[in-house]
């Protein structure tokens, strides 16, 4: 078994075009299974799908296993979670997760939800930013609040789906700033961006990838970020914290697996993801995609996830977002 796994690791490393030295290093890692399937609810080409397919190129040599990405769509992730929850906890099947599966579990109460699976590691944070069209007078969080206070009840802020983390962020921002604005939900980043561009909305919240095309064309500007620190790509966009709004949005991308995973599998993931994140090629890719590496070990991620669940529950309760039953 050891021989086979290490051979595989060498082959995988060689395929990835890595130096012999790293292949030798890979020999001391033995992952219990040959092929790992990463399940995603995202469609081929969707955000999560693309990131998983990119990451496995670097995970394969780092962990000494082959990876496959499987798109299990439908039910807002319910089917993907059900598949992972019903898979053996031997390190062969995982779910490439975003916070959406927690929302789905809380709102739709499916047979298999967030409590049927176990967090493994956190990998990235997707920075949530506030953007406006190029001729908007708004330039900072301070401007936004001032403008909303000067024109109560007339400003319109755009956000994603009703149960999304982006919506939650804007509601929190609205409450903390103490302003009277209308928060308008959308089906996704695309239609929101159009409404920002055509002036129907005063601002929108989203991820940089969603509007990269318009951003590079200079049609829209990023004026603020909900991260701990300013983003290197947008040095002029201040964080909410800097401007006295004490909030950080943590939209994560991580790995979740079936319950009862053996410790060596979890360790292999912790080591593998850490190593992949250090790979210069991968760094180049995720910097370009505006993802912030935000690795968390199994233990940290479990605690983090529990707090996310609590916050989401409170948010749904406060804004009366419930399932019909």
């Amino acid at each position, binding site marked *: 078994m050891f021989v086979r796994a290490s051979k595989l690791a060498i082959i995988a490393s060689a395929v990835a075009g890595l130096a012999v030295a790293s292949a030798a290093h890979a020999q001391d890692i033995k992952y219990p299974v040959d092929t790992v399937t990463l399940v995603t609810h995202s469609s081929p*080409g969707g955000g999560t799908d693309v990131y998983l397919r990119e990451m496995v190129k670097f995970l394969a040599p780092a962990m000494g296993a082959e990876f496959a990405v499987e798109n299990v769509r439908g039910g807002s992730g319910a089917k993907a979670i*059900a598949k992972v929850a019903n898979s053996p906890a031997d390190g062969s099947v995982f779910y490439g997760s975003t916070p959406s599966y927690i929302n789905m579990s809380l709102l739709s109460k499916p047979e298999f939800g967030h409590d049927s699976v176990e967090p493994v590691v956190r990998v990235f944070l997707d920075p949530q930013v506030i953007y406006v069209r190029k001729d908007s007078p708004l330039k900072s969080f301070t401007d936004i609040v001032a403008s909303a206070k000067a024109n109560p009840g007339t400003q319109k802020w755009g956000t994603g789906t009703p149960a999304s983390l982006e919506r939650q962020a804007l509601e929190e921002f609205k409450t903390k700033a103490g302003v009277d604005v209308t928060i308008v939900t959308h089906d996704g980043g695309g239609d929101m961006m159009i409404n920002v561009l055509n002036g129907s909305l005063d601002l929108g919240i989203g991820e940089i990838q969603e509007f990269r095309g318009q951003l590079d064309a200079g049609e829209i500007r990023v004026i603020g970020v909900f991260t701990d620190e300013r983003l290197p790509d947008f040095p002029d966009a201040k964080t909410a914290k800097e401007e006295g709004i004490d909030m950080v949005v943590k939209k994560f991308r991580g790995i979740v697996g079936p319950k009862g995973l053996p410790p060596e599998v979890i360790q292999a993931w912790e080591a593998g993801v850490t190593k992949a994140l250090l790979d210069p090629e991968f760094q180049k890719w995720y910097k370009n995609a505006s993802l912030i590496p935000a690795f968390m070990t199994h233990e940290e991620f479990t605690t983090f996830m529990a707090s996310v669940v609590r916050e989401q529950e409170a948010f749904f309760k406060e804004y009366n977002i419930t399932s019909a039953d």
Partner: protein
Amino acid sequence: METLLISLNALISPALLAAAFGGVLWGIVGGALPGISPSITMALLLPFTYGMDPTTGVVLLAATYVGAEYGGSIPAILINTPGTNAAAATVLDGYAMNQRGLAGEALGISLVCGVIGGLFGLALLVGLTQPLAKLALLFTPPAYFALGILGISVIATLNEGALVKALMSAVIGLMIATVGSDPFSGVNRFTFGRPELLDGIPYILIMIGVYALSELYIQAGEPGWEKPKKFVTVKLPGWVMWKRIWPATAIGSVIGGFEGITPGAGGTVASFMAYNETRRWSKHPEEFGKGAPEGVAGPEAANNVVACSALIPTLSFGIPGSNSTAILLGGLLLHGLVPGPLLFTQHPEVIYGLFGGLLTANLAMIPLGILIMTPCLWLVTQPKPLLSAGIYALIFTGIFSIHNDAFDIGLALVAAILGYGLKYFKFPFLPLVLGTILGYMLESSFRRALLMSNNDYSTFVTDPIAAGMLGVACLFVAGSIGRSWWVSRRQRAAA
């Protein structure tokens, strides 16, 4: 100049040539099989484009779309069954021409008008994509709502004398579209605890169910498909014929261009509008339905224009103008190509490669369209049970491949029973399908518009685009009521 070179390079690059020819061939076959829509034909290819170079993958998908729009007319003309939704308008006169022994001519008209339409659409695509990136911006939520209402009104008034049935059918479609999570509160509506229904009922299942499967149910109770006359060959239109059909081709091209650019219903609406307008402007409107060649030329030009012009909003803004361009959008995103104004400056090789590939695909359609007739004829002359079983297998494979879930097959079968019932009571399908497609957009843009205007309904008339489109929709419905009132009065007077 440089861009021209890239396009020219696309004309001679072996990989792109293969993609353009292969796409057209696969598209014609897929389009010719009743029930397999251009979007399904393309969706089946999508996984294969993963490993391809981005330009090749995108050209392959676009060429498939082009081929499928022509392929759909083959069974429409030969066996009275549209191979694609957009070919449903071709059935009316194409099949009538076949019954008059003019199948070859009908196929020839479809092919040539399709190619002309395709080239016209391509010219629009090349010329308008960048400027139109700005037009999409004018569509505010009230305008999107008005666009949906206009689409449904146009379709409902296509059915002469059956306006009420058509509107009822549209309402059933809108009702189907309410299944799933509420777009604003997130509440689950009519999901009956099934996680599969959370995202709503995919309209592709309704389309397959009411069109293809219910057709198979009905066919099962009938003696056998009419066999096309042996050795039908494509007869390209001669000068006399061409003189007769060019106005129809021009009308179809303009309507197709407009429909393709406007995000929404796509080729089907364009075909029917083209059919209607061609008849309205024809010198011989009485021949329509009895085998008028203009009745084939108009819709076939229109749906092939859409195959190219629907790429305009897709490329310039990432808003697909039809189901098929939605698949193409998936193909672009798969390779990390983000639609938008900058796609042209950052990835000119893909865009101009696509333009070149589409030119090849449209030109390749004439020889390929003639060549593939024999295998297509062989296919449709097979015993009906075998062919039906084969189509069921293809449809179920296609449906299953969407979510890898047999539940979807069940949904499509239920939709087929609905379709069977509607057909039995002579309700038109198209309003239902359009209602299903547009329902979500209608509802969410209606509610979003009200949210933005603080529940002030005047927002639908103060937005100029919305007011204009709603006004046109009223004219369509009023015109249809007026016409049927006029007809019934004349009938009474005659009696």
